[in-house]
């Protein structure tokens, strides 16, 4: 087991290394150079060279690459061109904001999705529940996350006016850690979180449903029912067995879900890593964009690792060579 984890870790590090390299060269090939913001104000050429020097953009591409990778190992993502302070300090507070909607969104989405999936999977085959369940899941899955965001905004924020549709808290709200632990923050969190949850439900539902449909024909289900346990408990046995395909899909699908979260952050002006990445790209702020990208790939690689580990917890038959 430990050998397997080690190998997976090494593999993940290699993957992250390659992704970062790809990102590095992609930015360097970018036509515009980051001193653009100042050029419009008519900055002189020497001043521009001073800036390039300061940002480590001088020297050949290879030198820049080695310097960037060297710093990366020491956790230094370089200084942001725009904020002119370490990219990590810029991004650090945004990570928490993104996690506020990503983690609960992922979990609640998975729980609600698989719960519904179990119900739809357990319903009589070809029945009304099954058909409407599948249809609804497919339609929600078909809706891009910004369409879901816009609809939530239109209905709950502007028409019913129950929930504010922007930002993370009232301007004069509490600051520091306290800002996360008050009603006002929760009030602002509702809509973006719902958008992420809705974004997660369909895949979970459909996967759990097909798992349960397959599991319910197994012999052990008949024996469990013969034991006189409640119907719900029997369904739980089928559901428990269908968790495996779900997990193997759930974590690696983070690569797609991060896309959804980026769009949700833009629609609801939620100051997270995704929104900062889009702003950084538009501002040509390489280090922040690369750091944000690096974070997201790390999240995905960790997720894949987590999927492998939880897989063994869920399926005792899997033995790690």
């Amino acid at each position: 087991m430990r050998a397997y984890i080690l190998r997976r870790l090494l593999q993940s590090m290699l993957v992250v290394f390659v992704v970062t390299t790809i990102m590095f060269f992609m930015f360097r090939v970018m036509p515009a150079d980051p001193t653009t913001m100042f050029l419009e104000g008519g900055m002189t050429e020497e001043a521009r060279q001073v800036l390039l020097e300061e940002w480590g953009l001088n020297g050949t591409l290879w030198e820049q690459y080695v310097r960037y990778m060297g710093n990366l190992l020491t956790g230094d993502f370089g200084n942001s061109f725009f904020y002119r302070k370490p990219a990590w300090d810029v991004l650090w507070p945004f990570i928490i904001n993104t996690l506020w909607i990503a983690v609960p969104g992922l979990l609640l989405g998975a729980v609600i999705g698989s719960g519904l999936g179990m119900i739809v999977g357990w319903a009589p085959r070809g029945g009304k529940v099954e058909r409407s369940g599948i249809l609804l899941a497919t339609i929600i899955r078909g809706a891009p996350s910004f369409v879901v965001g816009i609809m939530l905004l239109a209905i709950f924020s502007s028409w019913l006016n129950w929930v504010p549709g922007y930002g993370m808290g009232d301007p004069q709200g509490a600051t520091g850690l306290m800002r996360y632990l008050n009603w006002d923050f929760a009030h602002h969190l509702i809509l973006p979180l719902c958008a992420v949850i809705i974004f997660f439900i369909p895949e979970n539902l459909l996967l759990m449903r097909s798992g349960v449909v397959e599991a319910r024909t197994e012999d052990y289900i008949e024996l469990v029912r013969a034991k006189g346990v409640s119907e719900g408990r029997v369904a739980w046995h089928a559901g428990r067995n269908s968790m495996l395909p779900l997990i193997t899909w759930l974590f690696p699908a983070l690569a797609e879900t991060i896309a959804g979260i980026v769009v949700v952050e833009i629609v609801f002006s939620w100051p997270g890593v995704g929104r900062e990445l889009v702003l950084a790209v538009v501002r040509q702020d390489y280090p922040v964009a690369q750091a944000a990208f690096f974070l997201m790939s790390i999240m995905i690689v960790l997720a894949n690792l987590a999927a492998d580990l939880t897989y063994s917890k869920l399926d005792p038959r899997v033995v790690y060579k």
Partner: protein
Amino acid sequence: MSMTFEALCTSLESKPPVRLQVQDLSVTYSTSKGPVRAVSQINFDVEPGTNFGLVGESGCGKSTVVKSLMRLLPDSAKVGGKVLLDGKDVLAMDRKALAAVRWTQIALVTQSAMNSLDPVFTVGDQIVESIRAHVDVSHAVAWARAEQMFAMVGLPAERLREYPHQFSGGMRQRAVIAMAFSLNAGLLLADEPTTALDPIMQDQIMSRIRDIQQRLHRSMVLVTHDIAVVSETCETVAIMYAGRIVEMGPTRDVLNKAYHPYTMGLQNAFPRIRAKGESKPPLISISGGLPDLLHPPKGCRFEPRCPFSTERCRAEDPELRPVGTVMAACHHIDRAEEFRRAALKAETWRVEEDVQ
């Protein structure tokens, strides 16, 4: 307040064996090609503490009968008639009452040893689940009971913490048996418990079941296609063919003095241990296959494969009639003696065109 282990054991041991009465049981499956009467007009009783055998070729509907006793059939099956457990009709019970009866009154040992246990739960948890579903006991007490059951079937207690895939076929079947007796149900349904196992393991499992039965004095319905197993285990036996009981009665009488040609043919198809010196009888199989239950033949269902079939057999479906100590469903019961002698000869069964 949940019961202690001792209280649990005494309450379970004091449970009496159950009387089973099956009246006019019939099961019809609705398939895309139309309704199929898999089982029609089954009637039999199982006296408390006795073992009742249900024998027949595979596909004759015996598993369907067992499953209908516990209402485990899929929704597409319509079940008619009555199944009385100590007088209470299982088929009429509402969902809650049915759940209460299952495993407390009537337990099941399934055929497929390979995946009759949930792969992602430990065996111990699955047994504990069956106990705690009906009795208010703590997990520890239920676990102790499970250990007791494992001891009964000769499995080491620490195996309870392991998963089904870590058990061999025989061990898995013994685990299921342990689970079946966990609440000391009055009636045990054993649906071909040894078919999936090799002969040695088969014998071990059957002898295990027999001595548990004696010790716990339970009633049992044993479903099998193996006449040898039935003859050693069950007091009474019923021979099923194409969804019907064709002969029923005390095992000794049915096997020695069969009245229905199918029973005779069935015996020929099984190797029988003879006293020393007796000539080794040739193994004779019954040619042909089960009738198509979608369009059951008008007359006797065994007619197409019966070497002694007559015009009347084709026209009229024989009723189960008592003869001597057994009951048989054949128009020519009176010619049984003649049929028995002919049945021993191989050529009788080599069906040339309609032998008269």
